C-alpha cells in the first residue's frame, strides 16, 4: 500500500448529518419569515395600536435568521434527505417561537408567560386552534389578527411557500415539501415541485379571498351586523387553513346563521385535496373530482357525521328545526376537518354526542388539504388492506394489488401508512396518559374522555377538547406538563409524526 493512502482516509466521522447546511437553510427561512410581521404591523398602524411588538418580533426573527445563515454559510453543504427532516422539524419549532414573540411583548397578562405564549404560537402555526386566551377584550385588534394570520401562514405551510418563492429550494425541496404537505405520498407530486407549490398557494390565496369576500358581503348586506371587514378577513384566515382561532370568545356562536353556513362550507372546502381541487376547478376537469375515491368518501363521511350529530342534537332537545340542523352540521364538519370552530358549546353536550365528536377527531380531511388528523385516504387504504387480508386468509395465493382511483398503490406506501397509524395511536395514548397524570397531580378538573379528547385534539390539530377545555373555554388552567405535551403533540401532528420521529433514531445521525 502506498504510504499516503492511509493518511488520506482520515479520522472516522461520527455524525453524518450536515448541521451547517441545516442551520444555513433554517437561517434563510427565518430571514424571510420575519417579513410576515409587517402585516400585523400594518393592522396595528391602521387601528392606531402599538406597532413596535411586531416590528421587534420581525427584526429578531430576521436578525437571528441572518446570523444563522451567515455563520454557517462557509461550511454548509448540500441539503439532502437527512437534513430535510431536520429542517422541517426545527423550522416548525422556530416558527412557533416567532409567533409567540408579539404575544410576549403585547399580549398582556394572559399571554406573558413564555409557555402560554409558545403554546398559542404553536397552536396557530400548526392550525390547531387551541387557545389559552380567556379575555378577548383584553387583546388588541392587531394581536388578534396576528393569531389568525399565523394559522393562515401555517395552513399551507412555510416550506411549501418557500419552495414556491425561494429559488434556493428548487433543488432538494421536494422531500421537505412532501414532509410538510399533509397526507401519504400515494401518487407523488406530478408536476415540478415549484409549479406544485405555486399552484397550491395560488388556490389557497384565491380561496381565502373568496371566503373573505363572501363573509364581508354578509356584513355589507346587513345580514350579519357583526361581520365587519376585519372579522371577515380574520375568519377567512382561520377557516381555509381549518385552524379554529376566533376573534370572539364565543367562537362562531355569536354570528348569524348565514355566516355559520358559509363558514361550514369553506371548512368543508379546506378539507379537500388542494391539488385535486386545482385540477378540477381551475383546469376544468370536473370528472377527476367526481371520480376521486378519497373525495367521495370524505363527502360521504361529512354527510353521515352531520346527520348523526343533527339527529342527536334534535333528539336530546338541545335545539330543533334549522338550528338543530345547523348546529349538527357545523359541529360535525368543524371536528371532522379539525377546524375547531363552534356554534354551540358542545362541551356541555351529553356523552353519546361527545363520543360521536370524539370519533370524528380521528378522521381528518383529505390528503393535500389543510386539515390535520389521520386523513381519509389513510383510512380508505387501511380498509382496503384489511379486506385483502381477509380474502388472502381464504386464498393464500391470490395476488391483490391495492388500488386508489384505479392505479395500484405501492406496498411500501401501504406499510408506511400502517406505521403512521400505529405511531399516531401511540402518540395519542402516551399524550393522554401524560396529560391525565399531570391533571390528577395538579388538580385540574379533566375527566377520562376529556383527557383523551385533549390529546387527540392536539395531535390531530383540531383545537378544543371537552369539559373545561371546550370550544368556548381555554387551555389556560392546564398544568405546565400538559401544556408542554400539547405543544409536542401539535408539532408532531402537524408534520405527520414521521419526519420528527425519524430524528430519534440512531441511524439517522450515525450512518
Amino acid at each position: 500500500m502506498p504510504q499516503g493512502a492511509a493518511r488520506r482516509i482520515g479520522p472516522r466521522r461520527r455524525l453524518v448529518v450536515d448541521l451547517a447546511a441545516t442551520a444555513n437553510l433554517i437561517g434563510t427561512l427565518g430571514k424571510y419569515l420575519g417579513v410576515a410581521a409587517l402585516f400585523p404591523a400594518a393592522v396595528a398602524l391602521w387601528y392606531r395600536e402599538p406597532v413596535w411588538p411586531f416590528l421587534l418580533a420581525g427584526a429578531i426573527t430576521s436578525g437571528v435568521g441572518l446570523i444563522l445563515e451567515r455563520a454557517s454559510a462557509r461550511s454548509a453543504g448540500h441539503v439532502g434527505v437527512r437534513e430535510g427532516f431536520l429542517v422541517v422539524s426545527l423550522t416548525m419549532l422556530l416558527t412557533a417561537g416567532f409567533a409567540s414573540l408579539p404575544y410576549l411583548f403585547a399580549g398582556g397578562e394572559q399571554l406573558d408567560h413564555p409557555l402560554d405564549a409558545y403554546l398559542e404560537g404553536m397552536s396557530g402555526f400548526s392550525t390547531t386552534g387551541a387557545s389559552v386566551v380567556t379575555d378577548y377584550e383584553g387583546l388588541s385588534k392587531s394581536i388578534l389578527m396576528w393569531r389568525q394570520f399565523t394559522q393562515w401562514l401555517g395552513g399551507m405551510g412555510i416550506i411549501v411557500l418557500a419552495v414556491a418563492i425561494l429559488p434556493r429550494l428548487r433543488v432538494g425541496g421536494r422531500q421537505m415539501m412532501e414532509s410538510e404537505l399533509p397526507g401519504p405520498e400515494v401518487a407523488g407530486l406530478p408536476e415540478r415541485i415549484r409549479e406544485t407549490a405555486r399552484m397550491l398557494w395560488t388556490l389557497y390565496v384565491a380561496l381565502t379571498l373568496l371566503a373573505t369576500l363572501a363573509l364581508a358581503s354578509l356584513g355589507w348586506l346587513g345580514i350579519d351586523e357583526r361581520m365587519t371587514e376585519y372579522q371577515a378577513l380574520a375568519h377567512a384566515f382561520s377557516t381555509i387553513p381549518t385552524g379554529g382561532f376566533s376573534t370572539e370568545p364565543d367562537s362562531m356562536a355569536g354570528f348569524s346563521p348565514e355566516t355559520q353556513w358559509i363558514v361550514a362550507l369553506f371548512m368543508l372546502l379546506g378539507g379537500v385535496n388542494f391539488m385535486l381541487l386545482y385540477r378540477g376547478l381551475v383546469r376544468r376537469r370536473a370528472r377527476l373530482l367526481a371520480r376521486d375515491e378519497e373525495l367521495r368518501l370524505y363527502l360521504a363521511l361529512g354527510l353521515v357525521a352531520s346527520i348523526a350529530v343533527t339527529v342527536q342534537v334534535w333528539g336530546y332537545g338541545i335545539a330543533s328545526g334549522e338550528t338543530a340542523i345547523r348546529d349538527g352540521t357545523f359541529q360535525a364538519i368543524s371536528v371532522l376537518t379539525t377546524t375547531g370552530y363552534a356554534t354551540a358549546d358542545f362541551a356541555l353536550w351529553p356523552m353519546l354526542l361527545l363520543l360521536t365528536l370524539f370519533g370524528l377527531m380521528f378522521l381528518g380531511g383529505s390528503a393535500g388539504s389543510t386539515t390535520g388528523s389521520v386523513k381519509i385516504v389513510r383510512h380508505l387504504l387501511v380498509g382496503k388492506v384489511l379486506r385483502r387480508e381477509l380474502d388472502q386468509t381464504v386464498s393464500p395465493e391470490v395476488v391483490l394489488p391495492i388500488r386508489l382511483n384505479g392505479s395500484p398503490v405501492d406496498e411500501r406506501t401501504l406499510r408506511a401508512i400502517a406505521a403512521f397509524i400505529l405511531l399516531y395511536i401511540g402518540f395519542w395514548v402516551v399524550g393522554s396518559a401524560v396529560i391525565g397524570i399531570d391533571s390528577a397531580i395538579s388538580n385540574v378538573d379533566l375527566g377520562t374522555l376529556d383527557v383523551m379528547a385533549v390529546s387527540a385534539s392536539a395531535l390531530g390539530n383540531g383545537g378544543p377538547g371537552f369539559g373545561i377545555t371546550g370550544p368556548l373555554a381555554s387551555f389556560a388552567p392546564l398544568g405546565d406538563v400538559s401544556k408542554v405535551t400539547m405543544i409536542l403533540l401539535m408539532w408532531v401532528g402537524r408534520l405527520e409524526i414521521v419526519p420528527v420521529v425519524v430524528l430519534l433514531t440512531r441511524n439517522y445521525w450515525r450512518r
Partner: protein
Amino acid sequence: MRIFVIGAGQVGSTIVEALHHDHAILVLDTEGHRLTAIANRYDVATYEGDGTSQHDLAAAGIKDVDLVIACTSRDEVNLVAGMFARREAPRATTVIRTSNLEYVDLWRAGQLDVDFVVCSELETAHAISRIIGVPAARQTDVFAEGQVQIVEFDVQEGASGDVVGIPLRDAKAPRDSKVAAIIRGSEMLLPGGEDVIRPGDRIVVIGSPQAAKEWGALLSPGEATVRDVVIFGGGRVGATIASVLLSQGIGVRVVEASKERALQVAEALPDARVYNATGIDDDFLERERIGKTQAAIFAMRDDAKNLYAASLAEVHGVPFTIGIAHEAVSVAAFEHAGIDVSVNPRAVTAEEIIRFAHDPRTQQVALLEGNRYEVLDVTTRDTSRYVGSRFRDMPIHGALIGAIVRNGTAIFPHGDDVLQSGDRVIVFTESADAPRVVEAL
C-alpha cells in the same frame, strides 16, 4: 403477385406453404439453413440477409414486389423491415407481425405506417374466444378486432319461440345482430322479414359478441354459456387471452408462478383474479376449487408443463381444457393426451397473414359453407355509389351489410343510418357475387 417474406421460421414457412402455389415468393432470413430447408420443400427464391439492413432488402429485390410480410419472431426487426419496405417499395402492401399489443393499438390509431399488423398473442386470444365464446356455435369468426362476430348456429328442437317458428320481422332477436343466412338442407337463403327459422336449420348471425352469446342461449337453452375460465400462465399470451375474455364478460382467473409477473398481471387486469401459484400444485388446485371451473386454458411457455398441468386439471375435474402448443408437433401430442383443443400461436398468426394476402383490401375473409358464401371486410371508397345512401335504400343483390366499423368502433346499422366514405363494411355475400360487391363499395 410477388410476395417478399422476411423470416423463415414457423410463421414464415406456414405462409410460404399456403401461398407458394399461386404466387412468386422470395424469402429472406439471416439463417442459411432455414432457407435451405424452405427451398427444398417449396419452389421459392431465397436470400440470406438481414431484415434490418436496407442494403440487404434492396439487394434481394424488394423494389419490385407487391406484398411484404415481415414475420420474424422479433418485433424490432419486423418494424424496421416494414419501415424500409415502405421506403424502398412505396407501392407494396406491408404486413408485420408483432407480439406487442401496443403496436397494434398504434397501428389502429394510424401512427404506424404499415398496412396490416398481426399480433400472435391477440390472434391466439381470438382463436380461444372463438372456441369458448358462444355455446351451440358450429363456427365463429371475429371481425374488427373482436367487435363483430359471425357465428353459424345449429337450431335445435326446444329453441326459444322468441326467434324460432315465427317470421323474422316479429322475432325478438337480440340487439345489434342480424340473421345473415338460413341454411336448410342444401338450400341457402338470405332471409327477408317474412322468412321463418325452423328447428333443424342452420343459421348465420352477424352481431356483437354479446348478441352472439344471447343467440346461443336462445337457440340451445340447455347448453351452458362459459362464464368462468382459469388461465394457467400469465405471460404475454395468457394475459392477452385474459383481457380478451374479460372484455366479453367472462370471469377469468389467472395462475402465474412468478411472483413479480403475477403482480404485473394483477395490476394490469383489475377484473381478473390472479394467483401466484403453479399449475401443478395439487393443494392449490384443491383449495381454489379449480376443478369446478368451466374451462381451463394452459398458456405457459413450456409445452410439457402445459400438457402435465392440463392432465392434472382434468384429474381435478375440469371439463374442458385448451392447450397452447408453441411447437407445431405439440398439437398432435396434446390431442393424443386428451386435451380438448390445442392452439398453436404461430399457426393462427400465419393463417391471419394468409387471409390478408388473399386480398389486402379485405382485411379478413371468412369462408362459410364450403366456400359458397363469404364474409368480406371492405373499406368503402369515396367513389362508391352507395356512399351517402341510407341502408334501407340499398338494393339487396345477394349481399347483406352486417356491420360497419367507423373510427375503430363497430356500428350495427339500422335502416336510417347512412354509409360514409372510409367506413369498413362487413358484408355477407355469395362467393359468386363477391367481386361485384367489392367493386360496388
